[in-house]
């Protein structure tokens, strides 16, 4: 039941928000709703731990004769991703308060709508529901990016939409195809889909369809070219949602749907498909080094980081997948933090060009410290959230094939190279005309960042709870794979 509330509440709030004229109320209501949502998900967590390790299932025969049912629930993975969503969305909303949004009511209602979609994706236990919510998130994302976006947003966002949409259509076909190969009576229920029997050739096709859809969404090299432009042109809240949560949909889909259903392909091709994300890691890292626009820079770093996660997810062993889950959470938190900081920098200096910035640390020590911590998180320093996931992923990859781990491990070096160089050029050195009058963060502005920093250290030092949640789901999936 809680699960259903988690999905319905934002849906209703989103609809309600459309009709609110007063923008100030709209945004406050949005924040309130998001916070309530987080509260509910914490309640869900509580029940999950204390009363039942059951999955808070909600089931309703939606299209009985077509085997589609509204089946939502929360196992560890869903719980983890739901928590992430409900942690990040309030942060995103709050951080958007610092600057002026026109037609705020629509803006926030779209954000909340997207939240509903995301939670639907993360909690769906029915293939068709998964697809429906998967697409549902695309619409608000598109509108946010295209309406409140920067220059030549129309072309870029249309490309983004068409690209991802084509990918997911393939997935739709794959899901329907699977449906007809499930044991009788056919059903989209994930257990049925897991049990679907395909011959090797069919498996390959289904796998490719899934892989393409997810690879575009995450994105994995070489299907990533929509992403940097979109991140740059989208408003900050949009970029945060895209980078922090939407990319996770792809990874989550891989772990929840692609791998349990088509792992034999991964086995047979032994790790051929891991090569794409691996290339992506090196490639994107190299490109990131020379980027001048901060948002573009973050975009490329996230390609590199998510490449690592994807590689971990496809390595088909417990450690790597566990790491992937944890790293999804960490990356979500870190990238949102980075975007918030860039947002603050731009709102003060009116530029995101690394070349024009300099010596901000002199003027804004608070910003510098928080920035440094988030940065350390994303270069995976031990005792920050980045490390736990990255360590486990690399460990798992090493178990899979040592060379992969060695290549993926290059991220350890590269991340330091590009991150520190960026930090040095933006924050360190002496101030210049642009950063002369840079004012330090106010407490109001620091709140979201502090929340993020707390998460960074929490996951970094005591990942126990998160590990436990992830483990529960990962064990199931590895069980299927074995």
């Amino acid at each position: 039941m809680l699960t259903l509330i988690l999905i319905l509440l934002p849906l209703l709030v989103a609809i309600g928000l459309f009709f609110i004229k007063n923008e100030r109320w709209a945004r406050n209501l949005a924040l309130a709703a998001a916070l309530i949502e987080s509260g509910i998900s914490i309640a869900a967590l509580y029940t999950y731990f204390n009363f039942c390790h059951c999955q808070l299932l909600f089931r309703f025969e939606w299209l009985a004769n077509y085997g589609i049912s509204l089946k939502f629930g929360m196992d560890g993975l869903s719980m983890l991703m739901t928590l992430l969503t409900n942690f990040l969305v309030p942060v995103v909303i709050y951080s958007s308060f610092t600057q002026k949004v026109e037609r705020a009511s629509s803006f926030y209602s779209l954000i909340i709508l997207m939240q509903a979609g995301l939670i639907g994706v993360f909690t769906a236990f029915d293939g068709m529901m998964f697809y429906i919510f998967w697409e549902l998130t695309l619409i608000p994302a598109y509108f946010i990016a295209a309406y409140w976006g920067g220059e030549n947003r129309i072309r870029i966002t249309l490309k983004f939409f068409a690209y991802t949409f084509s990918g997911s259509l393939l997935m739709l076909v794959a899901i329907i195809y699977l449906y007809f190969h499930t044991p009788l009576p056919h059903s989209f229920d994930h257990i049925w889909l897991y049990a679907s029997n395909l011959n090797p050739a069919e498996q390959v096709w289904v796998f490719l369809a899934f892989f393409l859809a997810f690879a575009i969404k995450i994105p994995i090299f070489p299907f990533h070219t929509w992403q940097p432009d979109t991140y740059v042109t989208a408003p900050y809240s949009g970029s945060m949602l895209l980078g922090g949560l939407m990319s996770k949909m792809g990874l989550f889909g891989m772990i929840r749907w692609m791998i349990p259903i088509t792992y034999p392909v991964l086995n047979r091709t032994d790790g051929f498909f891991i090569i794409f994300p691996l290339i992506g890691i090196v490639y994107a890292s190299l490109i990131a080094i020379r980027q001048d626009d901060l948002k573009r820079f973050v975009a490329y770093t996230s390609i590199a980081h998510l490449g690592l996660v994807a590689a971990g997810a496809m390595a088909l062993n417990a450690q790597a997948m566990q790491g992937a889950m944890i790293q999804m959470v960490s990356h979500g938190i870190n990238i949102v933090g980075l975007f918030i900081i860039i947002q603050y920098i731009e709102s003060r200096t009116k530029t995101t060009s690394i070349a024009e910035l300099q010596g901000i640390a002199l003027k804004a020590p608070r910003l510098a410290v928080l920035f440094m911590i988030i940065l350390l998180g994303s270069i995976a320093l031990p005792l920050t959230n980045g490390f736990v996931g990255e360590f486990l992923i690399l460990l798992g990859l090493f178990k899979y094939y040592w060379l992969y781990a060695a290549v993926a491990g290059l991220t350890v070096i590269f991340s330091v190279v590009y991150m520190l160089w960026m930090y040095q050029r933006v924050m360190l050195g002496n101030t210049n005309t642009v950063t002369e009058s840079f004012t330090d963060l106010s407490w109001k502005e620091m709140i979201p960042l502090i929340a993020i920093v707390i998460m960074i250290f929490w996951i970094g030092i005591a990942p126990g709870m998160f590990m436990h949640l992830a483990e529960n789901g990962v064990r199931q999936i590895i069980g299927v794979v074995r």
Partner: protein
Amino acid sequence: MTILITLIPLLPLLGFIILGLGYRSIPKHIASIIGPGSILISFILSVIVLLNFRFSPFAFRFFDWISFGNLSISFDFLIDPLSILMMLIITGVGFIIHVYSVGYMSHDEGFNRFFAYMNLFIFFMLILVMAANYAVMFIGWEGVGLCSYLLIGFWFKNQQFNNAAKKAFIMNRIGDLGFLLGMFLIYKTFRSFNYVTIFDLAKTMSPGSGAITAITLLLFVGAVGKSAQIPLYTWLPDAMAGPTPVSALIHAATMVTAGVYMVARSGVLYVLAPETMEIMGITAMATMLLAAAIAVFQNDIKKVLAYSTISQLGYMFVALSVGAFTAAMFHLMTHAFFKALLFLGAGSVIHALEGEQDIRKMGGLKNAMPKTFWTFLIGTLAIAGIPPLSGFFSKDEILANVFSSSQPMWIIAVAVTMLTAFYMFRLIFFTFFGSYRGNGHPQFSNIHESPAMMTIPLMILAFLAFAGGFLNIPELMGGSRVLKEFLAPVFADAVKLNQIPHMPVPERREWFNIALVLFLVLLMAFRAFRKFGDLKPDDGNRISGIGARSIFGKLAENKFYVDELYDAVFVKPVLKVSGALHEFIEVKFIDRIVNGTGTLVVRFSNIIRYLQAGHVGAYMFFMIIGILLILFFNIIL
């Protein structure tokens, strides 16, 4: 007891947190109590630990860190002689340097920030040495790297310094990757990260097995990065950009020796991998020779010391490579004392000369700042290996061990010792003897001794540098080997399993060696005196160093252009590739394909829409063709 032990690292952390959060509000005088104070307490605690240590190593769990399924990485501490020794060195020397810094940094506006970083560093360093498994060690391992980054780039207004800091961190990270992979291989081989389990399993394995060789090599890569060996040593000289106490603490006494500690800690693994030992030996040889050679030609007081550090680290690795772990640790300790002392002395000199670091602009300071001079002299004698100072004993032990295993190595080691003596005495003569050459600024008259806050630490260190050696007087001189006995249980297995042949050396030969080395050292000292005994401002070519003359000198003076080489081979290409990838692959290839499909469809559309020509006749014609085709295919075929 366990609480006390956990407090040892936690107190510095607490100091860091307090100072970090209140880096604006907390006044200097309070900060200067919190900073060193926290270290002092944990030093006292370590002493307590030492006193009630009953020669049985014991590990205990602090908390569960990363654990799921059969993988469990818990935050464990291991207390055994080795870690106790390191803890004492870190907290002890650390405390002294903290005290010194209070004086040294007194005028810096980043005072609190400085002590926050320093405390954080101590915290990580303690984690590194107290860890009971490689994963936790890695926390410290990376943490100290971070702190060194923060402290090298402490004056971040200056982008040069920031570059140095970045370089240090990156090179460390290269090593860390090796360390990580090593850890993974360890886990794959032994299914655990715990020292005890690993070593117990390893003992049963046959020497020279592939897995262990690979593990040890990968770990050694980590050590190379951390302890500035070839090829990853170039960051250490640049690291001198940081404040001098930092150089003393991090880049001389503690962090850079982490590699040595790690290898000693994993001694069991290393003795089982002879190939690794050989590689390590060769690397170390090359490193210490190169570094010593460069040091001879440097004119920056801190650079000289930096290169000497590198070569001394090489010394320790040589000791490790012949399985003389105690010797290595012993030298590590003494080196911590006298190198810290030397750096702090140099610091006091720089302090007095208002930031001047070029020894060619110094001279005749021994009257101006006697305390600094005498302590510095003690340090020099110690490092040069003049009995009965600490350096003599530690070096002698290493040399003895090396000699017993292979003469050629011994010869190189001796050569390095000679060079060491030469450049150290050159340094001291340049700095304190002769006449003042800093033309005008600052006036010689207003150069004066540093405050007590700085000189007292110097004296303490000087005492340690003098007396530190007596901890471990070889039997040869009828001494008691306190340290050896103390560390024996740690290295017992390693020594037992050691593969490197040790031929017994007759006592007479040993005495002869000692005498020979001593003689050579004195010779070099004398030679240094002859060349630079009393430099006048006018005699330029001697001042400008030997570099001017020989081609070799030129090379050495420019550090054999290694930095330039790296720049040309790694840095520039990476930047080029980065640009090229983005321009050609990303934009002009991949993205063009993506957009191309789009435009292709539109073009196609633009073509076929002309079918819709608007003429009814044409439409009828098309339809008829359609009809005929359909009938044809369905009926005739």
